[in-house]
Every structure is written in structure tokens, then in C-alpha cells.
């Protein structure tokens, strides 16, 4: 129900599809490409904060969403959401920054669209502020930007694995 609402309300822009998402169903590469481009809008570089690229948002999510401790429903939802997003905005990847921002704003105004973006923002925050051992927060760039001092000791193993 919510997913349909997202597709209907966000596809009225009606741009022609340059990239057929069906071709990418066998693996998630295309979904990750979409997510990577969306992250550029969600976490842009500012005077004080690093960009999603700088703190490895997409790569963080790609790697950590495969761990058994990750919510598998979240992973499926995020990846499917990317395909639905592409169905609604098939030319997204080709657009310039301002046009992409407009589309994200439009997506954020639909219930399903906002839910999907909310998941991405949450995991973007994880990438920004988790210990660098997980692959985000490169060289502690997130902590340094926010003057955050982490607690010691830092993890030597991911997911508190006992060795």
C-alpha cells in the first residue's frame, strides 16, 4: 500500500527510463548506485561537515548490511526502495545537482519515500559516527567534525566478537 503510494505520487514527473532496473534484479549493484547518488544529496559537504563520499556512507551500508546482526528487513527495504525510486525517477542519475535535490524533496513529501529516506539517513548517521573499524567515519572524520571524543578502548573486533 505504502510502496504503491510512493510509486504513484513520485512518478508523475514521467521522465523516460534510460536505465531499466529490471536488468539489475539479479544483483544489487544498481540499487547501490542509486543509493550512492542519493547519499550525495542527503549528506553534502558543508563548511563544517564531511560529505557522504568522505565518510564512506554507501560502502559502510553495503558491507555492514551483510552482517548477520543487521536487520535483514531493513536491507531488503532499502534495496527495493532504490529500485522503486528508479522506477519513479528513471533519469535521476543523469540529472544535475539541483534537479536531484528537487527529486529528493519530492520523495521526502510522500510517506513511502520519506520512510525510505529515513532509513538511509539513519544508516548514514551510523556511517558518520560509528567506530572506523566498520568502514565509515574515515580517519574519524565524523567525530572530528563534531568535536566528539570517543570512549576508550575502541573495538579491536567488529560486533564485539570474542577472540
Amino acid at each position, binding site marked *: 500500500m505504502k510502496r504503491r503510494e510512493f510509486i504513484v505520487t513520485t512518478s508523475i514527473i514521467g521522465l523516460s527510463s534510460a536505465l531499466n532496473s529490471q536488468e539489475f534484479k539479479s544483483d544489487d549493484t544498481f540499487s547501490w548506485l542509486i543509493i550512492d547518488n542519493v547519499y550525495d544529496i542527503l549528506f553534502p559537504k558543508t563548511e563544517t561537515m564531511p560529505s557522504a563520499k568522505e565518510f564512506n556512507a554507501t560502502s559502510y551500508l553495503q558491507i555492514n548490511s551483510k552482517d548477520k546482526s543487521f536487520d535483514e528487513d531493513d536491507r531488503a527495504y532499502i534495496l527495493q526502495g532504490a529500485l522503486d525510486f528508479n522506477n519513479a525517477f528513471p533519469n535521476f542519475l543523469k540529472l544535475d545537482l539541483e534537479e536531484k535535490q528537487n527529486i529528493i524533496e519530492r520523495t521526502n513529501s510522500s510517506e513511502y519515500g520519506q520512510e525510505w529516506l529515513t532509513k538511509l539517513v539513519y544508516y548514514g548517521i551510523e556511517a558518520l559516527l560509528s567506530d572506523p573499524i566498520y568502514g565509515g567515519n574515515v580517519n574519524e572524520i*565524523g567525530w572530528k567534525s563534531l568535536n566528539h571524543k570517543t570512549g576508550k578502548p575502541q573495538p579491536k573486533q567488529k560486533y*564485539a566478537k570474542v577472540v
Partner: protein
Amino acid sequence: MMKYDICIIGSGAGAGPIAYELTRLGKKVLILEKGPIYSEKDVSKDEIAFVRRDIVTPKLKDEYHVIEEYIEDGWYKFPTYETGWSFWNGNILGGSSNFMSGYFHRLKPNDFKLKTVYGNIEGANVEDWPISYKDMEPYYTKVESKVGVSGSFTKYKHHEPRSKKEYAYPALEEHPITKLFDKSCKELKFTSYRVPRAILSTSKDNRNPCYYSNYCGSYACASGAKGSSRASLLVDALKTGNLTIKSESFVYKLDSSKDEVTKAYYFTKEGNKKEVEAKLFVLSAQAVESSRLLLNSKNEFYPNGLSNSSKQVGKNMIFTGGGIGRGEFDESHLEKDELFTQGLFVNRALKDWYYTDDFKGGTVDFLFEHANPIRRANGLKRDDNGNLLYGKALQDKLFENFTKKRVLNFEVFTDWMPNDNCFVSVDEKYKDKYGVPVANIRIGAHEQDVKVGNFLAKKAIRVLEQMGAKNIDVNISPLPSANLQAGGCRFGDNPKTSVLNKYCQSHDFKNLFVTDGSFMPTGGSVPHTWTIYANSFRVADYIKTIL
């Protein structure tokens, strides 16, 4: 098959003192702990592992609870794997005591006789305890030295009697904002109560003192300073050679004859079924799970579950009532270096209204917002209308909140009024991955809890206003504190209305004890942990006389 003297189910605050005391007497003690063993070297301040993922608690899809909430016209069941509202609090050796903040408050004499002092409140099931504060006082004192409590005495009108004026360990170092707090309280003629903590300020045996990591509550301690059951008691118990710990062993059923509990059945990590025999069993799996186990242990002699002749198992569950509030501080209040000093504690509370002339009041603890940056940032991702923020607006909001202000929180603790709509049951329709019925928790709260919570919150807000805090906010709620559980196996003198006698020994079986918070008919207006530790030492002394 080896027959142990004592089999303890669980290893938290209710279990540690039993193991510590009885192994020292040469008794062979077995602990069956549901989770794995972590020592100081295995823990870190990793927010992903210890806060954001189900690593030290079960994955909710595998093992969950069902929460029964009242919605408009009736009670509806919500499995926690759907809501994410976890009622697990630490399935590792030492249990949830590993992750506590260690705000330690004793109960007070009137907490043991609330019904006598204030009478029952309509719709609540308040009962006096079968013991008095005097019975418990020596054990509170024992916890101060054995588990380790650091603090300095605050004189105020409701202070409970103490056999030793000073705490076993000196107070922890305090954050500069406490000066502003103390000054504001003085101006308001409120008592600024200095809160003792179950955290060592100086070393003790092999435990190192607190190193002020700034990542305390929700994290296991890497120095051994925090008084977890594992660090403070089980390590010493192991040294006797009389303690065996079987980790990753989930006890799903106890068996009995008509007269005594005979066996505990458990699943290993690999899912294999095993059983163990002991002369005496101590159940301490945290209140919800302890009731669940007894209810799931019905047999031909006891069709309603073990120790349930009174049909009171699972009834009158209690949590702590209240809620939280906040106020913001910036460079207009303190020099930046002072304000952003990390790791030092606030350790202040208001307790002037623990009792009022008309009703039982409670406690308000003050503390800085937990360090957890992911949780803090996640709380900033929406605008005032609840819409998602992203892009520069989100980035700017994160920067402003992290670098220019600090949030001082307060937590209100009121007595959770025991009532007929707060209980644990089991339902064959809801089972975990092992096929064992999970605990259903009905979470009905009495209106008194919110009334008292609001009363106390107003006092806390006055302090924040006097301090000059900005953007003060408060949320008093009837929802339970999932991490502070008690009740379900009340102790009392009457076997028809209580599950346990005054020694926390089952009325039905002389060889079954329950020593987590389950025994408590009322919880006091404080976190329960100190009382659970103290009571477990008290019960251990009794077990010594019968084993």
C-alpha cells in the same frame, strides 16, 4: 550425573551474591547463563555492537516478548520483533548489571510498609513487605564494600538510617556543572543530593578504578570499576574452585516432584537439550524471564506452573514509573572548556519529595545525555513538525547541537503501582526459536504513577530554570522502564497471596529460591539494583543455614 549443591539460573545482581557466599563455604555451585562470557578485555566503547545491534541480547526475531497494550477498547498483543521495543537487558555473564549506570539508592524504612503508611490506592495492589529496613540494612552496607559503592553522605530529612556514615569508597570526580546545580538548589532551598554510584573511585583487589571514559551506562566496563555481578563477585567465586559456569545455556524448564525441584533443562548454544540436577535451585533470570520459566514448567503435580499454588506467579509485575526531561546548556552558562569536560559525573538528585504528607513521591536523578553519538544524532534528524531533515539542514543541525551545547537530562523515578493489568503470562500462540512459549507482558500502569511523575518533574524543571537552562522539555509517561523489572513472584507471609516466603524461598518447594527483583511487592522510587544485590546477600545467609 553430577549433582550440584546449588544450581543458579542467571548470573546478574540476584545471582552473584549467592554464588559468592556459597562457594566460599565449599558448596559446589553451577551457574547456567543464557549468554556468553565477556571479560574486561573483550569489551569496548563500540556503540554499534553494544547499543545499536542485538549482540549482547537475543535477536528479536528469534527470541522476543509480547507486549500487551490497551488500545481504545481492549488489550492488544504486539510482539517485540514487530516494534523493536526490546525487554532483554544483557544476556552475558553478569547480566544487565554489566550495562547499568550504577545510580545506587537504598530503599527507605517506609518503602517496606507502604500500605501501612499511605494505605492502598484504589486500583492498586500495594502490600507491605514481610521484612523491615532493619533486616536489610546490614546487607546494603555489605554491598557498599563487596560490590563497591562510591559516594559522600548528604544530610537531608528523608535519609534512611545508615550503620556507617560514609560510603566504602570516596565519591567519584564531578563535572563543573555540579557547582551551578548546587548553587541553584541552594537558592531554591532544595537539597542537592549527591548520588552514590556502584563504580569504584579507587582500586579494589584486581579491579581498577573508574577511568572516566564518558561511555558508562549501556556499556560494559573495561576497567572492572563498575560493580557488575561478574566483576565484583563471580570472578572471586571462580577463584574458590567451587563455581562452574555453563554459558550460552538457556534454561527452558524446571522439573519437580511433589515436594522438590529436581532438574533444570536447558538448550546449549548448538540447540542440544541437556539437563542438570542440584540439591537447591536459585532462579535469577530477571523478573520477566523468571516468571516465564516458572509458568512454562508446569507438570503433573503443578498444572499451573511451578511454585504457583497461589496462582500469583507473574502477577503484580512492577517497573519504575516516571519519565525523562532535559535542558540545554551552552557557553552562556559555563566556559566552553568546562562545559565540554568529558567523562566526569553529575551525580546529583532531588530526594526532598521522596515522601510527601499526602502521597509517596520519588527521586529525580540528573545526568548528562549519554555520549552515544549515533543515538544523539538520530534524535536530531527531524524538524519541529516531525518531517525528515537531510542535506545542509541536517548537517548544520548536527554541528550546532554537538559543538555548541550540552544536554542535561533528568530521570524521574516513582513507585510503579502494582495493579491487575501489569503481569506476565505465557501464550502457546507465541513461541521463540526453541519452540518455548515467550513471556507476554501486560503493561497497564496506574494513573498515580503519572500524577507523581508530573509532580516531581515540576521540581526538576524549577532547578533547570534556576540554572538558566534553555529549551527545557519533559516527557512523563505511563510506559514501563524495560530495563528495570521487578515483581511477579512476590514474597509474603501468606502462601495463598504470595509466591515466596520472607527468605525468597518458594512456599511450595523448600529447595527453590527466587533472588532477582521478582520478590518485590513494591519497588521504591529508585532503580532496584542495590536492593536486589542486598537481598541476595540476605538470602545467601539463610541458605547457609539450611544447606
